[in-house]
């Protein structure tokens, strides 16, 4: 123990006034699998936090060495007692232990100090960088904003991914599901979206919260490292409930994440929250419910599994100016098995969200990344959450791609096709290439607009399909170097004026002249 701690203790002892602490208590009757049956606590309420008294009968030294308080969360109120989930190590609880009621509904700390930090499902630091000094407690369960308090979703949230920003636009306050099999790049889409917020002006940049549920610690550490390296951690909070934590914490983590998000939303700020992933949360909740002896329903999930997700996702919204005008945009992730989107949990979450993007294994394996199937992906907010510039260039892309997918099957008969069909296929192939994007490299909206404008103007028509991505990269570099003002103009106005279009045409012409060798489709 260091000298300053000793001094602090001496001071505290000098100021001690004799007091006694009263509490409403119960006794542990049985414990197992993270769930504890408690006798007593007849005045306890649902979702109340209880504290296990570990110090009883222990010597002072042993009591002091206890590693923080051990909490429980009341989840069942029964005739002769309550059942609670242990929010920590089950091995620390023993039969006969006294359990104290706190009178507090589960809440988590929230503050600006959390930015750049990794916290656990209870909002406690999990990165070893020390405690938070000043925090506000936010209730984990809170009623979502009502109709009167909400505002329409109209401000775009740029993901930096061309295929999404152009065809499945997301608005601030929207809930857009990312769904697909394992290994199709769901997390990558989410992380790229966080990275892209760096391109937003600081005053409009959303606070990002990444909630890792049931993930491997190594994966979360890798994500934190990537965000840190690319400077995105300064506006990001990671809420981590890894696979090794009790089911109760995995079930709680998304609620803790959104509670922290609400702290910022209440201040009028925009928040982006990613739940990675809700399938694992549903599994954790199923485990917990079965241990609590709640009746199982379809696929052994409890009857309120829909409510679990709907009450969480309803908290994503854009509130009215009277309420501060903040927003929470939610990107929940759902993992499917063998591409089956008709499963219980996927269909539930599809019906709750305002749109979904499907990531397909086949596309991923073909090298089309992000592997978004734009044909079946949809954003129900639509172009209301797009800038005029993007709306202008993205209009025809979805249709072109849909036609291309229809004709794609005929590609093997290329030599027998009429010219119009062949041209459409070629154009579609190039558009697919244009929409390809490396992971960890989101593209600012103005560059997306410029590239898509060029693609619509047949700029890539003479480029061999295999070189489209490389030419696109060179073209954006060229625009960056020579036409920075034009790009800035698009970013600032959010529009593609005739003058800007002219400049982009000139830029395309200049680039083609300077790089003739790139433009020969043979």
């Amino acid at each position, binding site marked *: 123990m260091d000298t300053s*701690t000793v001094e*602090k*203790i001496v001071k*505290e*002892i000098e100021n*001690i006034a*004799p*007091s*006694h*602490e*009263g*509490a*409403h*208590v*119960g*006794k542990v*009757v049985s414990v197992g699998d993270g769930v504890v049956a408690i*006798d*007593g*606590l*007849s*005045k306890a309420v649902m979702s109340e936090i209880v504290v296990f*008294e570990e*110090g009883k*009968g*222990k*010597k*002072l030294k042993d*009591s*002091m060495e206890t590693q*923080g308080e051990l909490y429980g969360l009341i989840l069942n109120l029964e*005739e*002769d007692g309550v059942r609670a989930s242990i929010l920590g190590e089950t091995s620390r609880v023993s039969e006969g232990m*006294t359990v*104290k009621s706190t009178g507090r509904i589960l809440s988590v700390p929230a503050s600006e100090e959390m930015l750049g930090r990794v916290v656990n499902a209870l909002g406690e630091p999990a990165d070893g960088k020390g*405690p938070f000094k000043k925090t506000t407690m936010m209730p984990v369960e809170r009623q979502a904003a009502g109709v009167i308090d909400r505002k329409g979703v109209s401000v775009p949230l740029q993901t930096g991914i061309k295929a999404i920003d152009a065809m499945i636009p997301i608005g601030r306050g929207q809930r857009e599901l990312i769904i697909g099999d394992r290994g199709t790049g769901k997390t990558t889409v989410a992380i790229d979206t966080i990275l892209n917020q760096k391109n937003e002006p600081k005053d409009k940049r959303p606070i990002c919260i990444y909630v890792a549920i049931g993930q491997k610690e190594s994966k979360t550490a890798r994500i934190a490292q990537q965000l840190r390296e690319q400077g995105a951690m300064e506006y990001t909070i990671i809420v981590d409930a890894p696979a090794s934590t009790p089911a109760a914490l995995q079930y709680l983590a998304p609620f803790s994440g959104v509670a922290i998000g609400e702290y910022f939303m209440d201040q009028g700020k925009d928040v982006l929250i990613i739940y990675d992933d809700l399938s694992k949360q549903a599994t954790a909740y199923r485990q917990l419910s079965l241990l609590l002896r709640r009746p199982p329903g379809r696929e052994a999930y409890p009857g309120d599994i829909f409510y679990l997700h709907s009450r969480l996702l309803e908290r994503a919204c854009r509130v009215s100016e009277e309420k501060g005008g903040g927003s929470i945009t939610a990107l929940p992730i759902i993992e499917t098995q063998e591409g089956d989107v008709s499963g219980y949990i996927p269909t539930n979450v599809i019906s709750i969200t305002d749109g979904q993007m499907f990531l397909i294994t086949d596309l991923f394996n073909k090298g089309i990344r992000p592997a978004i199937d734009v044909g079946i992906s949809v954003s129900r907010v639509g172009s209301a959450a797009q800038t005029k510039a993007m709306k202008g260039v993205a209009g025809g892309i979805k249709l072109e791609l849909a036609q291309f997918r229809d004709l794609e099957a005929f590609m093997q008969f290329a030599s027998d096709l009429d010219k119009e069909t062949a041209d459409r296929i070629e154009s579609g192939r190039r558009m697919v290439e244009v929409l390809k994007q490396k992971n960890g490299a989101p593209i600012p909206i103005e560059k997306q607009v410029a590239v898509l404008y060029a693609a619509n103007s047949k700029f890539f028509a003479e480029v061999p399909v295999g070189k489209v991505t490389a030419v696109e990269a060179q073209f954006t570099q060229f625009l960056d170097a020579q036409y920075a003002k034009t790009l800035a103009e698009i970013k600032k106005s959010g529009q593609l004026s005739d003058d800007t279009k002219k400049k982009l045409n000139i830029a395309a012409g200049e680039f083609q002249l300077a790089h003739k060798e790139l433009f020969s489709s043979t």
Partner: protein
Amino acid sequence: MTMESAYAQALWKMVEGGMSPAKAVHELRDLLKARGREALLPRIGRAFARIAEREGKRTGVTLSVAREKDERAAKSAVKQILAEFGVEPKEVNIHVDDSLIGGWRLEGREHLVDASYKRILVDVYNAATRT
């Protein structure tokens, strides 16, 4: 809830409601006989014993002190609290727990009042080290 604990609960409520234990058991036996469930009786008996034990613990009040000689001072300190609980001082079980260091600790009827020196010292330590 299992069938035997449901019957045991019912029996407990009957006795608590003022019926004599002998009469309550007699009526329960008649009922079980009529329903062909007489074989449940031993298990109901065990479940009833568990309820009685639990209720005993729930209603019992224990005053813990660090040393035997602290008993008198502690008893006078908890007089008012016991009155609030509706418990006579003579009904209180005294327990000596030297880990308390000093002071007292009253536990029972779903309440815990901790005025032990150990609790105060742990609070001081936590305040100094965990902020």
